[in-house]
């Protein structure tokens, strides 16, 4: 119990004194995960909506692949992104392995299928005749897609929350492609793993609390928007 109590006390001190190292790790975590979520939002929503509306041979196979992608293990993503960005890999010439950019790429790969799968389901859940009704109102196809996205916005917000939740909490891929370099590519999850390994439980608890707070505050903001829109 003392260990936990000490950890909470230390966390409080680190937070109140705005410890520069902890703040740096926190901001980097936010920067990497928010950027990855935004990328996944653009890719996931556009492809998810297009797939929900399109009919072509092999569509079911593609949809099942996306659904499988929603459960992609971060370490597998980390492994393949590392191979691709490795000095001798296909994108080795970019020289971005062990950088925050590599972490953003890996996290975007994790979040995109999540956002895509939920977006697809969200648009598919809308009444089938809604498309006809929108077109009958005189909409162009582009206007129709935009209206459908607006109609599915509550579920799309859930997709964003799930995507963000998936990447802010992952550690495997960030560790593998970021390298957990102090002051450069260390994020909350990788730092927590490292401090736990060193037996610095107080710091690890402090980092965990910050991580939880961060995840809570961001999802709280999104939930506020979502629930404000919910019909009463």
């Amino acid at each position, binding site marked *: 119990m003392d260990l936990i109590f000490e950890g909470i006390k230390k966390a409080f001190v680190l937070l109140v004194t705005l410890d520069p190292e902890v703040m740096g790790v926190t901001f980097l975590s936010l920067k990497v995960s928010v950027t990855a979520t935004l990328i996944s939002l653009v890719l996931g929503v556009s492809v998810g909506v297009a797939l929900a509306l399109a009919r072509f041979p092999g569509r079911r196979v593609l949809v099942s692949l996306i659904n499988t992608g929603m459960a992609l293990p971060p370490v597998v993503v980390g492994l393949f992104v590392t191979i691709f960005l490795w000095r001798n890999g296909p994108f080795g010439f970019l020289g971005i392995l062990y950088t925050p950019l590599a972490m953003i790429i890996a996290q975007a790969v994790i979040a995109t299928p999540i956002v895509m799968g939920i977006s697809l389901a969200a648009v598919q859940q809308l*009444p089938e*005749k*809604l498309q*006809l*009704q929108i*077109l*009958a*109102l*005189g*909409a*162009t196809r582009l*206007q129709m897609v935009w*209206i459908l996205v*607006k*109609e599915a*916005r*509550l579920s799309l917000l859930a997709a964003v929350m799930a995507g963000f939740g998936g990447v802010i909490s992952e550690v495997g891929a960030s560790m593998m492609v970021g390298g957990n370099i102090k002051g450069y590519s260390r994020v909350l999850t990788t730092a927590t793993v490292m401090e736990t390994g060193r037996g610095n439980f107080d710091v690890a608890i402090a980092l965990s609390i910050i991580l939880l707070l961060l995840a809570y505050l961001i999802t709280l903001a999104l939930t506020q928007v979502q629930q404000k*829109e919910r*019909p*009463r």
Partner: protein
Amino acid sequence: MSGSAPVLEARNLLVVRGGTRVLNIPSLVVSEGEFLALIGPNGAGKTTLLQALSSLLPYKGEILFRGQKIGATLPVLQYRRKLAMVLQEPLLFNTTVYNNVASGLKIRDVNKKDASRIIMRTLDRFGITDLKDRAARTLSGGEARKVSLARAIATSPEFLFLDEPFSGLDPVIREALIEDLEQVIKETRISTLFVTHDREEALRLSTRLGAMQSGEILQIGSPHEVMHHPVKESVASLVGIETILRGEVVRKSRGSSVVSVAGKEIEVEGEWNPGERVLLCIRAENVGLRPSGTGDPAGETNSFPARIEKIVPLWLYRKVFLDCGFPLVAYVMDKDPTAMLLEEGMEVRASVSKIHVIGDSSG
């Protein structure tokens, strides 16, 4: 067909789904200011027809709007913006009533000031101004249908498609909604194509009536013509003719013929050739009943002894199923003094006053 200029025309309209012809309309014309109602059972192709006519699904053939061919001289988008469609489900957007009514105008890029004026006028026309800030998903079924109608009318369409917009509503709300629509149509004189399975709705609103089945229009004409002079057995059933009897003409005389049905002779108007097989259509309201033994049947035409098989009480009248050697259905108004005397198993006399005859091609 009405004498005014055609607004919407379909020629050789064909819709094929999975190799099956689901719609086959050689010709259809809706004229300026006309309200054409098409009745048909579920699966008759009514919705497919509306969707094809509004160019919402692939079709073969030609659709012309005010003489311009859709997809050729008149681009599809431009055409759709002249139309409005109200579907069976209101399919409102997840926003306020105001924004729902505004949606068609927003799609057409109508400026906010003009749009606001039109929306307020439309809300007022349908008596839903007080609902304008309500979330659409909180509306009752009737309110949602009103908003759906208002959304369609707000764009001032030149043509209105109605796909069973009143189905599933309780009678009071349905009546109010029909009255609203009647009023709007009277004011705007908008040409309308209305499909429904409900005869009463169709009769209430239509200036012309059609019957549809299996993707085809079987008959189209004035409401009276279709209701009282169906050209086919299926149309007779659709327009609510309760008794359809198969028989054979046994003789004809000046202006009339005698048809044998299950060994009984029934006299009908018109000269039909002996041996010809015909269908006799008898509306239940054209059958009179009186207790057996009352009145003198001698000299009466088409008067038959009958036994009451079943009595079904309905609103304001009773539906009486009779066995005259052939089945016959009669309506007896509740206020009719005879109504109280009738009971199942009772012997009565049934008199048929009007019979419509159709040549029976099936026999």
